[in-house]
């Protein structure tokens, strides 16, 4: 009787074991990461290349075994730089069980900041505002790049070091500095206080700011405004199209000043749009341009060819490289956290990724021409400096890699965090 029952139970059990053992339908565990991008809206000129670069990067990461053998399911949406849609899509990604979000700009990052803090979800985005680097306020916001204020301080310092000594008035008077940016844009205005502080520190005379719309294609009135002050160097804090328009107009009207530009206005499209006016323009490059000869760039280029064959490689931008910077950053954080036993396949692992992943990084090198990355529980400024490059003779060339912490250690440690 007992044997009969045993057999009746054993046979179906064995059948199930055999079938499950042979089945390919067994679902493997995945790490879910969500993405919010702008491929339609006001920042799509740079957002599209970033979005596609990010998707390429996660495909490459999966081809390398994902996170210590667990594959990543990367799901991304275009939110068109519309904040209500960013919030809706964020909630959807959260419902889908994503454990981290690869976000995009200042709009979504700032709007979602309180929710992200509450949800304890790492939010790696391409908004590099220094206001987002103080973990007391935004403990889950991360990026690989130098922040905008570091970019700005580094750019004016590089100009002061390398260009000003070659000017005929060097040693005779103070250098003159002015800034162009869209006053109403959080991105444009974010580093203005910092660059003026740096200008003061270096002994510049500071002129009036010029309001240039992100959509401007005619900036003659602003250039005329600049001419009254006769600046030696002008900071442009906008994105590529309006930067190109201003540089072109300044060239045509004979402004005679040098240009230093924030990273979103300085890319491969600038010389295409500005032509010969782009010669000598300098800019902050938190990573190298697409295809430049730096460590890991071969992976970026080969993945672009393999995973996005419909887009000619000649059309890819530094934005792809920036996306890789953020993807490699979260990959490393997840690998570290996973090794420490954080279960990345389950919701609620955000604090674990922060503590055992991101915040264990000290001078981590992702290659790509980026500066070494560190995060501590009290300081989320990823890097202490930035590489400044110049468009010269038909190519981008290095001017100087400025390390602010090395030059001004006390100010870096005590004064400059969070703005």
């Amino acid at each position, binding site marked *: 009787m007992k044997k009969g029952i045993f057999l009746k139970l054993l046979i179906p059990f064995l059948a199930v074991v055999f079938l499950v053992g042979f089945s390919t339908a067994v679902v493997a565990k995945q790490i879910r990461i969500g993405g919010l991008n702008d491929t339609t809206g*006001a920042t799509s000129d740079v957002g599209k290349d970033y979005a596609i670069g990010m998707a390429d990067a996660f495909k490459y990461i999966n081809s390398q075994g994902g996170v210590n053998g667990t594959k990543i399911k990367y799901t991304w949406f275009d939110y068109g730089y519309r904040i209500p849609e960013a919030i809706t899509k964020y909630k959807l990604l959260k419902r889908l069980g994503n454990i981290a979000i690869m976000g995009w700009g200042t709009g979504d990052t700032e709007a979602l900041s309180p929710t992200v803090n509450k949800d304890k979800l790492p939010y790696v985005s391409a908004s590099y505002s220094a206001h987002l680097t103080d973990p007391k306020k935004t403990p889950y916001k991360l990026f690989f790049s130098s922040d905008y204020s570091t970019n700005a301080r580094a750019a004016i310092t590089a100009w002061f070091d390398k260009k000003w000594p070659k000017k005929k008035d060097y040693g005779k008077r103070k250098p003159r500095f002015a800034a162009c940016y869209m006053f109403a844009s959080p991105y444009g205005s974010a580093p203005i206080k910092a660059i003026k502080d740096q200008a003061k520190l270096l002994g510049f005379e500071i002129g009036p700011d010029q309001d240039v719309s992100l959509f401007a294609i005619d900036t003659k009135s602003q250039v005329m405004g600049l001419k009254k002050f006769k600046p030696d160097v002008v900071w442009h804090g906008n994105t590529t199209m309006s930067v190109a328009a201003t540089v072109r107009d300044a060239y045509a009207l004979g402004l005679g000043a040098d240009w230093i530009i924030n990273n979103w206005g300085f890319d491969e499209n600038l010389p295409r749009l500005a032509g010969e006016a782009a010669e000598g323009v300098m800019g902050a490059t938190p990573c190298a341009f697409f295809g430049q000869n730096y460590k890991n760039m071969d992976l970026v280029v080969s993945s672009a060819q393999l*995973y996005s064959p419909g887009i000619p490689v000649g059309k890819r931008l530094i934005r792809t490289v920036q996306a890789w910077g953020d993807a490699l950053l979260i990959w490393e954080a997840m690998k570290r956290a996973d090794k420490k036993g954080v279960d990345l396949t389950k919701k609620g692992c955000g604090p674990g990724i922060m503590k055992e992943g991101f915040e264990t990084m000290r001078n981590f090198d992702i290659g790509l021409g980026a500066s070494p990355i560190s995060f501590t529980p009290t300081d989320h400024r990823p890097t202490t400096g930035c590489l400044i490059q110049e468009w010269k003779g038909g190519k981008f060339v290095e001017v100087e890699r400025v390390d602010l912490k090395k030059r001004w250690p006390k100010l870096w440690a005590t004064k400059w965090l969070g703005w």
Partner: protein
Amino acid sequence: MKKKLAFMMVLIFGLSVALMSCVTIKVKPTAANLKNPVIKLESFEVPQYDGYWYISNKVKPTKGKADNRGAPLPLSFLFSVKNPNAYPILLEGFTFTVAFDKDFDLVTLNNNDSYWIPAGKTTHVRATTMITTRSGLLSLLVTGGFKLKERKWSPWDALERWWKGVPEASVPVTVKEGSFAFSANGVTKVIAFEATYP
């Protein structure tokens, strides 16, 4: 009894192998034998049309909050995907950009869904997205400013032309920079795609 048990186990094992062999592919996919799937843009349509209009945030709406809002223009693309292989393949997702008048990129669409395509069969995949005159305006101002200047068009000229012409197929709609990702048993292949309608 022991003989009966052993016989039953062998029988179950044999049956399991036989059953699985029914679903196991006959030709093993490799990078060398994976032929390119054939993708075609079969049709394009505007599934719902609401005309051409734009309301700025200076206009008080009857209900809700004032904002810059534009007429929606849903865009629906039907692709056929033929699998010429002797084994099933998985379409893992695709990305493409939609351009009007060939030069003006309006939206990049990403589809995360997966579709199995049986050996030798053709399947149809529909991709639908939506733009508005607001999103179109922003996109144009940021990416298309210099191109508009070359054609001597204002952004509003372009938007009106497209919102009236695209539904009637009098403005060419281009699917460009397309990447369709396929896999079969761990072998992956990404196919480039471009087409213009009509």
